[in-house]
């Protein structure tokens, strides 16, 4: 198991954009399981939606992506490279996620080749599927992102 301090050593995201609170399983290069606890204090709930707080689907995807990044980068970090989200396929938001929910996220690598990595992701709350879909990442040179 990996607590928040250990997670901070692995990923670059920070509050209010840190979407994994605990990692419960990690198989480097293959799969991971992790938790995100959803609180009404998160800033997006101010507007999404007033008086009906629902976690935005894009942030559920981001939660899955951050867990995937730990699977990819668990082998080490090359400072000249960035892992970026390339594609989001077939995501379904089966049930709304609301404050008080604890997301049980699992991701499993399905494909790796060239510079890309694909994962299937599933998000459960109290054991019931709330969202699922696929994510694809690629590596880019950090310099190429900023020197257009």
């Amino acid at each position, binding site marked *: 198991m990996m607590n928040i301090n250990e997670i901070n050593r692995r990923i670059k995201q920070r509050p209010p954009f840190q979407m994994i609170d605990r990692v419960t399983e990690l198989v480097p290069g293959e799969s991971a399981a992790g938790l995100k606890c959803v609180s009404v204090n998160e800033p997006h709930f101010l507007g999404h939606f007033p008086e009906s707080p629902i976690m935005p689907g894009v942030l559920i995807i981001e939660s899955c992506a951050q867990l995937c990044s730990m699977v990819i980068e668990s082998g080490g970090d090359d400072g000249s490279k960035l892992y970026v989200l*390339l*594609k989001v396929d077939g995501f379904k938001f089966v049930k709304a996620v609301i404050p008080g929910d604890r997301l049980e996220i699992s991701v499993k690598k399905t*494909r*790796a*080749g*060239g*510079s*890309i990595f694909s994962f299937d992701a599933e998000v459960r709350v109290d054991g019931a599927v709330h969202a699922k879909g696929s994510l*694809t990442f*690629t590596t880019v040179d950090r310099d190429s992102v900023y020197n257009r």
Partner: protein
Amino acid sequence: MTENEIKAKLKEFICSTLGVEPDVLDYDTELFGENAIGLDSVDSLEIIAFVDGEYGIDMTGVGKEHFFNIDSIAAYITENK
């Protein structure tokens, strides 16, 4: 594996994974560019990953003329395997 079998596999991949309809994709159909079937740079990374995974050939950084159509990708694979 013959070059024709490689072409058939490439077409199957492009249709099933990249969402191209089989009846608009021949082996000589232009894949990228204004007069093409609308694949983009993300799709090219998918093709590179497929070729790497399927044939162990890394096409990263290979000239774009080799990505012109299924014929040219298959020819590159045949020459480099």
